């Protein structure tokens, strides 16, 4: 393929990636309830309507709550696993990375359905707690990948130097190890939050009547008079799931597919 052909194919590929996103952003400013193209008249009135909608606000609050819960669990478990794998030699060490990536390598519906059958069989109700458990299960790998990449790049000798200079293990962790992994934790946490905030498949199978923001969109997008508000919420969701990614990649340098989602 010639240079020019390559350029054209690349440009077309990026147009393909971005046209739908641009279209949905434009529709959020559509003054009419009818979603025809081209858009006749633009307006910002639906932003106020979405902001005032009680069900949107409740869904947003729930999504934030779940995102924070899942991120917290992922940070604790993901970094513990990263330290164990990077700093120690033990039987089954290779299996851990593979096991952690399973929830995102297997289709989301498998994770969802597995948790759903367990919740059903155990007879525990579907609550915000079961949603957090479901989300944390696939968020752990994101934190794990970020922290382990940082640990691999950083040298242990500065920790040894700290101990040689008389610091106890807590001081070494507080003043040396933690600052080294801090930005990796922030990046991993942001990505985990973005993943959780956007998740719908696992949520559907682990939720009862709870409505997160993606579930709110899914249940309202067929209602013609709700469409303008759905468009606004959609744009909001794009911004809120893309912003952490931008910040995270500034902080950590890379976020590969291995740290990605269902």
């Amino acid at each position, binding site marked *: 393929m010639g240079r020019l052909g390559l350029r054209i*194919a690349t440009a077309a590929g990026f147009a393909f990636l971005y046209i739908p996103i641009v279209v949905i952003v434009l529709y959020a400013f559509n003054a009419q309830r009818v979603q*025809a193209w081209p858009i006749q008249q633009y307006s910002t009135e639906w932003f106020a309507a979405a902001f005032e909608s009680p069900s949107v606000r409740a869904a947003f609050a729930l999504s934030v709550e779940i995102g924070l819960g899942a991120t917290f669990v992922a940070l604790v478990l993901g970094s513990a696993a990263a330290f164990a794998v990077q700093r120690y030699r033990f039987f089954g060490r290779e299996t851990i990375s593979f096991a952690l990536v399973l929830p995102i*390598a*297997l289709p989301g519906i498998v*994770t969802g359905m*597995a948790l759903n059958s367990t919740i059903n069989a155990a007879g525990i109700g579907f609550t915000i707690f079961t949603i957090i458990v479901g989300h944390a299960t696939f968020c752990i790998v994101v934190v794990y990948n970020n922290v382990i990449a940082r640990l691999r790049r950083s040298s242990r000798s500065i920790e040894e130097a700290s101990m040689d200079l008389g610091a106890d293990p807590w001081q070494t962790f507080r003043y040396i190890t933690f600052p080294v992994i801090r930005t990796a934790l922030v990046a991993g946490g942001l990505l985990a939050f973005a993943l959780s905030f956007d998740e719908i498949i696992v949520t559907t199978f682990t939720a009862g009547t709870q409505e997160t923001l993606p579930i709110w969109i899914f249940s309202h997008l067929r209602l013609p008079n709700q469409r303008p508000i759905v468009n606004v919420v959609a744009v909001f969701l794009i911004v809120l799931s893309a912003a952490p*990614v931008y910040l995270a990649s500034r902080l950590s340098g890379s976020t590969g597919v291995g740290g990605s989602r269902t």
Partner: protein
Amino acid sequence: MTTSPTALVPKSAAPASLGRRVLSALYVRKRLQLALLLAAPTGWFVVLYLGSLAVLLVTAFWFLDPTTSSIVRSLTLQNFVTLISEPVYRTIALRTVTIAAVVTITDAAIAFPIAYYMARVAAPRPRSILFMLVLLPLWSSYLVRVYAWRVILSPGGLLDWFFTTIGLPGLSPGFSDASMWLVFSYLWLPYMILPIYAGLERIPQSLFEASADLGGRGWMTFRRIVVPLVLPALAAGSIFTFSLTLGDYITPKLVSNTQFIGNVIYDSQGVSNNVPFAAAFAVVPIAIMAAYLLLARRLGAFDAL
């Protein structure tokens, strides 16, 4: 590090608290440290995730009593007999797998030139911008991107308007298998670009020069150097494009009028409350993915993830 060593001295001179004595005692016991670090994550995974998968497998062998509509917890093959004997489930499974395969091939074809341009042609600065531009759609809301396509594909939408304007009305795919193919290819494209990009970036420039020195033209170099070296990365990307299509039910629901395996699972579980049947059908993508992952591992995909 910003903290100077002198700042540490007064603190360690103070009488050590209980917590610090515990930490110091722990410091020399490597096995205990490891056990403490591993307990929570492995416990979570073994009990919650692998345990749930086991429960899923067992549930698949239970059945729903149609007269009382309660779940009977005794093992039977009834769900699997239904899956195999009803032609509709075969059609649905076949449709799901076919579209997943076609989407994977489509994404490989679209992703390759983009990844090649990014890895071997673009200068460092445009390259990092392009990298970000691939990353953003990958992470931005999946549901919203499907919804955007629903708006574009719907009657009177952008595609309808486009084909009418260029004088070919009726060519818009509307809601069909073709629209699913289009939307799935769109959704998972970044998952294919990134591994191929990483794979292409790793090929040393000297191999291209050696190939040229030995008389290899563009096509020859591509076929004998690039393709073999990029194959593991391609296999890695295909795990995502294939697996994510296989398990989806949102996209078929929003941009098509046909069903995927996921739709049957979703409806059995959510609408008719037949959890055992849903579990049994969920075993199908698990089995397909297990076979696929074994194949991908032989192609070296796990080293390219």
